[in-house]
Structure formats: C-alpha cells, structure tokens
C-alpha cells in the first residue's frame, strides 16, 4: 500500500494546527498584557449570555437582512464542520468516506444536509458580497475601512465561495465515480445540490475523474487549513472569540461606568481629616486612565481581537453619523493594531517590550475622536457580541484630563466651576433655591 498521501496529510495537518496554536498563544499573551479585571462572577448569567448572544446570535437579527444571512452562514459553517471530521479521519487513515458504513442511511441524510447548507452559504455569501461591493452599504465604506480592512472582508467571502464550491465539486465527481469504480468509491451519500454539477464532469475519462476528485478533496482540506490560519491575520477571529467575549462582557447597567477605587483613599483623605488608609490597601496607581494598550484591561483587549468590523456601532454613533472623526469601530481596530504592534515587538525581543516611542493615544487614536463621544452607549448596545468601545474612550479621556490636563478649554472651565461652586456653570451655590421664588 502507498502511504505517501497519508504522510503528506499528517504533515499538513500538523503544520497547520501547530501554526494555529502558535498564533492562539500569541493572542493569549497579548490579551494578558491588559490589566486584571474580575469577570468571573455571576457565572450562570454569563453562560446564558454566551448561549443567547454567541451561540444563539440573538442580537444579529435586530437587523433582519444581514442577521438572517449571517445565521445561514454561521449554521452552515457549524454543520459542514461535522463533515470535516470525516475528511480528517479519511486523510489520516487512507480510507474513503469512513462514516458511510457506520452510519448507513443516516449518512445519506447528513451528506444531503451538508450540501443544502453549502448551497445556502454560497447564496448568502453572494448577497454579502453584493451588499459590500455593489450596493456599497455605507458602513462598509467608512474612512477606517480603506485598504486592508476592505480587502480582508472580501477575501473571507472569496474563501467561503471557493471552499463551498470545492466541497460540492468533490461530491459531484465522487458520485460519478461511485458508479464507475464501486470498488474504490463506496456507494454512499445523497447529492441534492452537487447532482447539478455532474454534467460538467460526466464525459471525462475515469482517470481524469479520479484526478479531479482527488484534487477537489485535497484543495478543499488545504483551503480549510489555510483559512484556519488566516483567522489570526483577519477580522474573522470573531468566529472563535465571540464566545469568550460574550461570556466576559460587562453585566452592569450600561449607565454605570467603572469607579476607580484606587483613588478613593486620596479623596477620602482630602475630604475627611480623620480618615486613615485601611491596612493592606495599595497605593494609588502610577498612571490614571489609558494612553496605551497596557493601561486597558484584558477584556478591552479581547474586545479588540473579537471585533469583526461590521460597523453596526459606528452606524448608530451620533458623532459618526454627523460626520465627526469618531468611529467606535475604529477605536477597536486601532486598539487591535496597536496591540499587534506591541505583540510583534515582544516576538522580536524575546518577550521583553522595547520602547518604541509610540502609543495608542495620538499615534492611533486622536483626542479629537475621543472628545466627540456623547457617552450615549448606542455603540455598546449595537454590538452583536457585547464589545464596549465606550469604556476605552472613557479610559483615554481620563488619561487626557488627569495626566495631561488636556481637556478642551470649555470643559476645563466647566470643571473649574464644579470645583469652585459645585455646578458646571458659574452660579453661586447660595442661589440654588432661587427658582422657588421666581
């Protein structure tokens, strides 16, 4: 027997899984550069959120057209991956359709179902492509989508078209060979979609058919290996990270912004002369707010890797839709780009970050963007997987104000008023009740 294909397959799968694991480890390392934040409470609610939002896609369908198409692609992806299991076992053992004798007539149902989903995915992907490239839906053409992000979005769609076509073409040639060469091609499966491709291959010689079937089979699985490893370089990571991202999401009411307990001791000391710092309490932080990815917490960094740049956030952002520079999606993309840059720096320098005279603030995100935010939470509400761009904006504003005193002039006078007379306007506190007599 000839073991060469099995050995080639083993090498390919080992390399692609190995490379993928290497990149997953890098993502983990980069995310753990973030500050700690406790998101391990209320596990019941967290599991429910993950099942509802990531597995159940419940927020996707708030926009019915894209939501419906996405559900098709998502379900198709999950279902067709069952077939992947068989392909891998076949590849490693040299068998062909190893599940067919085990599953009997159920196998026919399964293959038929995979084909129908493959077809639905193809249709949905064509719709997606049309929405991006022909209808040119606004959110796919904003400033931050120029260049790689636009190409990335299209590449993913092309990948899916090619993979689905290869899967169907593989089945079409296989079904012909099942008639011509039953000895090698076990009669199994039902082919509700690929039967329509059969005329394309019918008149080929047995050898050519054999060559085609094998090519489709190999290109399909190699395509999947490539796609798997493309994830890390793409916005498409959301297919994995949506799950932890929804699990570890903020569970508080959206209006509750995090209160920095570290500076509470100092405030208490200023306000209350009898206050003594409780024992074991840590000193105030060396830096307030965030100017770089190291100052954000790990959930915010995971958010950045999870973002698939759909732009629902920016399409509802009051600042963005009125032409301001702020785009919540760009906040997430910038955070990821900076984090990746830091990651590459770590790779190069054996895990030690070598200062690069850059940071998230200014080099990626400008104060003008940050100051345009109304903190309305529309972006947070719109995200199908609970990404929170607002928390990053607020942390960066905190850095601007508390470390750099770099608030817009009007805000400085507003804060001066609060400090001096307890109101954002220059009115005396003694006049607070004047309205009663007016």
């Amino acid at each position: 027997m000839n073991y060469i294909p099995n050995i080639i397959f083993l090498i390919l799968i080992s390399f692609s899984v190995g490379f993928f694991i290497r990149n997953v480890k890098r993502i983990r390392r980069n995310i753990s550069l973030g500050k700690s934040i406790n998101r391990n409470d209320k596990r019941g609610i967290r599991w429910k959120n993950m099942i509802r939002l990531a597995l159940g896609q419940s927020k996707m369908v708030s926009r019915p057209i894209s939501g419906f198409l996405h559900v098709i692609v998502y379900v198709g992806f999950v279902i067709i991956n069952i077939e992947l299991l068989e392909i891998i076992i076949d590849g490693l053992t040299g068998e062909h359709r190893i599940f067919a004798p085990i599953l009997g007539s159920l196998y026919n149902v399964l293959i038929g179902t995979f084909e129908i989903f493959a077809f639905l995915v193809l249709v949905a992907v064509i719709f997606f492509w049309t929405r991006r490239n022909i209808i040119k839906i606004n959110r796919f053409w904003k400033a931050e989508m120029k260049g790689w992000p636009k190409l990335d979005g299209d590449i993913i769609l092309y990948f899916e078209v090619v993979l689905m076509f290869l899967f169907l073409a593989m089945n079409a040639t296989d079904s012909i060979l099942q008639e011509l060469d039953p000895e090698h091609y076990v009669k199994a499966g039902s082919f509700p979609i690929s039967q329509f491709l059969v005329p394309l291959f019918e008149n080929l010689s047995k050898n050519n058919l054999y060559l085609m079937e094998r090519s489709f089979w190999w290109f399909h699985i190699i395509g999947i290996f490539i796609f798997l490893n493309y994830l890390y370089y793409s916005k498409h990571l959301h297919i994995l990270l949506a799950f932890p991202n929804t699990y570890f999401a903020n569970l508080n009411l959206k209006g509750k912004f995090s209160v920095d307990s570290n500076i509470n001791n100092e405030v208490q000391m200023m306000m209350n002369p009898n206050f003594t710092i409780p024992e074991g309490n840590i000193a105030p932080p060396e830096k307030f707010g965030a100017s770089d990815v190291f100052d954000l917490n790990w959930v915010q960094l995971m958010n950045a890797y999870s973002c698939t740049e759909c732009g629902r956030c920016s399409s509802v952002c009051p600042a963005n839709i009125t032409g301001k520079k702020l785009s919540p999606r760009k906040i997430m993309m910038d955070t990821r780009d900076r984090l990746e840059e830091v990651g590459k720096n770590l790779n190069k320098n054996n895990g030690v970050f070598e200062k690069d005279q850059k940071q998230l603030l200014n080099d990626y995100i400008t104060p003008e963007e940050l100051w345009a935010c109304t903190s309305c939470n529309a972006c947070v509400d719109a995200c199908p997987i609970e990404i929170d761009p607002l928390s990053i904006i607020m942390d960066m504003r905190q850095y601007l104000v508390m470390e750099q005193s770099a608030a817009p002039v009007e805000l400085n006078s507003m804060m001066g008023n609060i400090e001096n007379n307890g109101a954002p306007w220059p009115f005396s506190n003694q006049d607070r009740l004047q309205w009663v007599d007016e």
Partner: protein
Amino acid sequence: MLNVPTLAQINAEGKKADILFWVGCAGSFDDRAKKITKAFVKILNQTDISFAVLGTEESCTGDPAKRSGNEFLFQMQAVQNITTLDSYAVTKIVTTCPHCFNTLKNEYPDLGGNYEVIHHTQLLKQLLNDNKLRIEGGKFKGKRITYHDPCYLGRANQVYEAPRELIKKLDAELLEMKSCKSKGLCCGAGGAQMFKDAEAGTKEINIVRTEEALETQPDIIAAACPFCNTMMTDGIKNKEKEGKVEVMDIAELIANANDL
C-alpha cells in the same frame, strides 16, 4: 405658591420626608430647566407625598466631570454629597435629570452611597398607580406627542415605559420615532458635550434628532431630561418650527394637563 421645604428645615422641626427631590444643577440654574423643576414640584404639592430638597447643600453629582474623564473631581463631589445625604439619613431620592439619576443610582454605591434612586417619571407613574395622582387628559386629547428617550434614562438604565405610559394617560397619540427605546438617538448633550462645542463634522447631532422627531409630525416633543430639552428646543428653533411644535418635559405635560 410653591411649597418646597429643605431637609435642614424639616430636620429642625423633627420631621422626616418620604423622599428627597434632587433638583440638579440644570434644574436649579438653567432658565428652561427651572420650569421643569417647578412643574414637578407643583405636581408633588398636589399629592400628599412629603418631599424635601437639599437647597444650598446640594452640589453637582460629578457626572459631567466623570464623563469628561476627571475621576478625581467626580469622587470629590460624590464623597461630599454622600456625606450630606447620609447626615440626613436619606434613603430615597427622586430626580428630574437622568444624568443625576444615573450617577446617584449606579456610581455612588461604589463610594459608599446607597440610596433608592428613581426618575421623576417613575415616581409619577407610581403615584398614578397608587391613585395618589390623577391626570386630566382633556387638554392634550388627540395631540400628537413623540417621546425622545434620554440615553441615561433609556439605554443606560432601561427605563422606557414609565414616560410612555404617562403620555398615554393624557389621551394623546403617542408617536414613535424611527429610532426609539434602546435604539434611541442621542440628543448630542451627553458625555459633557453640553458644555463644549461639537467637534468638526457635517451636521449637529441635535438637528438630526430633531429631524427624526419632526418626521412623526408631532404637536409636542416630550422629553424627560433638561439637557435633551435644551437640545431639542434648539433644534426646533433651527428648523423654524417654534410656535408649531413645543418641546415639553413629561412633568410639564402633566402639570399643564392638571391646570397647575
């Protein structure tokens, strides 16, 4: 005559108030917002609920400082206010400003201030349910009213129904804008934007929101936040719809309906 006791007065008389009315800076100083404050007090005066204000002892909750990024100033304000509130053993607070409401309700607990905080539309709804408040519908019968969700009441705190139910009690026709409730568009004032000029862009946010409101062809735009009120009023002026479309707080609608 408005009856507005302060907690200091009530305390001196050895009495207690059911609820503290947190007036807020806009409600105390801004000419438009003062009318909302007064309308709300008139309604309270009509009921038998006992309330009090802090008066000169009230100070900014710190919301605009916090949204601007000044956590230190926010906490200074919070600690000062919590000291005042606790010195009167306040347990329940009502406020006509969703920003004060949000900060007192959600951010003070982490600094040791724990109170039951409700928005005035919630209190009015409650009084209505308990038959302590009657709303006369006649004046607004058949009027077209659209309601603008304040971000800090709606999305931030999930309060969508109380204001709407109050509007329905006026026998008015409640119209929903194309983005409403959890999808409601901001008026443009939140996150301390009220106190600064907007960054360069193609349009003002309040104009976009006003256009959405006008699409419903309303007689009245109902608001539940003094800042939203200002932004929408400015929007109406910009669209030269003054005299045709009014911007009114829910408290004003009810006070008006009840001839107060």
